């Protein structure tokens, strides 16, 4: 009986879940303290959080609804440009830049999602790439608005004014890190709450067995659209944070390479695990940071790590905690 030997993922017991949640947040909150001790710096921690959020957003669709997008750089990149447009052309407001990025990426995701939500599997993945290329070429060619190949440059994230006091996230990189982490907390928290709700269980049902879900009365296309849209809004937030982190927006943020890297991050960490993609992003960004200073062939080593992880931890790095052989 194959059913008896199949590996199955079991959710962790409740107490362990809380412990893991606490551990994740202690590590994240303390990052500015321990990053320098291991040779890192605060902006590197911010990059990890940004790409972790992006990979987790992609994984909302991929790991928890069951449709792979190889074109999620589109909504990440639109978040990058949305934030850039506001800071360069309109106003010196970091919150408005963030909101504009989220709306540009999220609304675009909702529109594209409506066009593709009838596709499944490899066809779904391919049309996501196609639309991403469309956005890439718009950014690349529309010089007068997007700055073309050079992108949008010459803007800076602005300090945030709260009336009585001002958070100078422009110059203080530790304050900026906590700003990024706060946005991460809100967006990741929203995704986590959705996944534990009846809506999240419906997404899970579609991942597990779409035919069964349809015959329980679930209109599958509509829910896949919804998951795609939520995922696009969340990854657009990560994109907007990335623009604030780098103080520029360029077409490489819309590139298919980013899409692929996000999938690699999610798979590295474990796509059936909520926090897995964050760990995957941490590994990816750190390896990239150290090795790209040593060799231009750093991607080779990332590939090597990827192969090793896929061979020995087929459920991803965090997947090992959920892995067990049925009795």
């Amino acid at each position, binding site marked *: *009986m194959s*059913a*008896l030997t*199949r590996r*199955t*993922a*079991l959710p962790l017991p409740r107490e362990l879940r809380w412990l893991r949640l606490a551990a994740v947040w202690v590590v994240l909150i303390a990052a500015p303290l321990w990053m320098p001790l291991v040779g890192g710096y605060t902006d590197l921690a911010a990059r990890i959080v940004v790409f972790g959020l992006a990979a987790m957003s992609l994984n909302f669709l991929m790991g928890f609804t069951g449709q792979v997008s190889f074109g999620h750089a589109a909504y990440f990149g639109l978040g990058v440009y949305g934030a850039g447009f506001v800071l360069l052309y309109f106003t010196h407001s970091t919150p408005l830049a963030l909101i504009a990025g989220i709306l540009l990426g999220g609304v675009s995701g909702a529109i594209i999602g409506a066009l593709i939500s009838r596709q499944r599997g490899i066809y779904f993945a391919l049309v996501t790439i196609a639309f991403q290329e469309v956005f890439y070429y718009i950014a690349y060619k529309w010089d007068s608005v997007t700055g073309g190949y050079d992108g949008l440059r010459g803007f800076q994230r602005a300090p945030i004014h709260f009336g009585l006091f001002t958070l100078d996230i422009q110059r203080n990189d530790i304050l900026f890190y906590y700003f990024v982490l706060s946005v991460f907390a809100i967006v990741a928290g929203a995704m986590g*709450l*959705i996944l534990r*709700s*009846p*809506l999240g*269980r*419906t997404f*899970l*049902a579609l991942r*597990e*067995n779409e*035919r*069964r*879900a*349809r*015959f*329980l*009365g*679930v*209109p*599958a296309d509509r*829910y896949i659209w*919804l998951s795609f849209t939520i995922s696009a809004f969340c990854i657009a937030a990560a994109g907007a944070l990335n623009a604030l982190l780098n103080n520029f927006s360029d077409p490489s943020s819309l590139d298919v390479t980013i899409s692929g890297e996000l999938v690699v991050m999610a798979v590295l960490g474990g796509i*059936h695990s909520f926090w897995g993609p964050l760990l995957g992003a941490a590994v990816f960004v750190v390896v990239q940071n150290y090795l790209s200073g040593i060799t231009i062939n750093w991607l080779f080593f990332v590939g090597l790590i990827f192969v090793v992880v896929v061979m020995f931890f087929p459920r991803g790095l965090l997947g090992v905690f959920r892995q067990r052989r*049925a*009795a």
Partner: protein
Amino acid sequence: MSMLEARNVSKHFGSLVAVREVSLTVAKGELRAIIGPNGAGKTTFFNLITGFFPPTAGEILFDGEPVARLTAAERVKRGMGRTFQITEVFPQLTVHENVRIAAEAAAGYGLRLWLGSAASKIVAGTVEEMIEVTGLTAKTERVVGELAHGDQRAAEIAMALALRPRLLLLDEPTAGMGEQETYEITGLIRRLHRDKSYTIILVEHDMRVVFHLADRISVLEQGALLADGTPAEIAADPAVQAAYLGKAA
């Protein structure tokens, strides 16, 4: 009052006619078995009723309303619940989660981010009831993909029941089962029919199961309806014997 009525329903796949102008009526509270040799079109007919694909011609009335052009999800909303020939469950989730998803979908909570205590109670009550009816209480927290075939079947039936369907459609519920499992599932179906007065249509190969359970039997052969009647009438029908029972024996 008829629960389900098929009127001259046909399904063509290219030049192949899988179902040919089948008409039949299933009364409320009835347990109807659909039998026929391999390739007779039983599962195709089943798929037409449940909306897996639309018929090429003909109409299907459910509770007097035409449903032939509705999607599967819309027919589920109107009260059809089905299981599949090859068990369809959510393999990596527990029995409880499987049935809970069904109960939440049926109650229209599939889009909710939050359930109030009243709604949670209704869902929890349905889940507990259906798990108990199908005899899975001891396996509530087990992952369905790990269970034995018979228990996976029972879990699938529990999911269909959690929809609180007015018509339950079972596609070869005993397919691939051993003696003991067949006995248990047959008992479950009989309890659902006798004690809970479900209207049930089932496609089945096992003649002992069919003659044991069915109020009426419809025989399909090469896509067409060959005969329709009580088990005694079907057993005595010379056309059926020639086409089907004779060959099987």
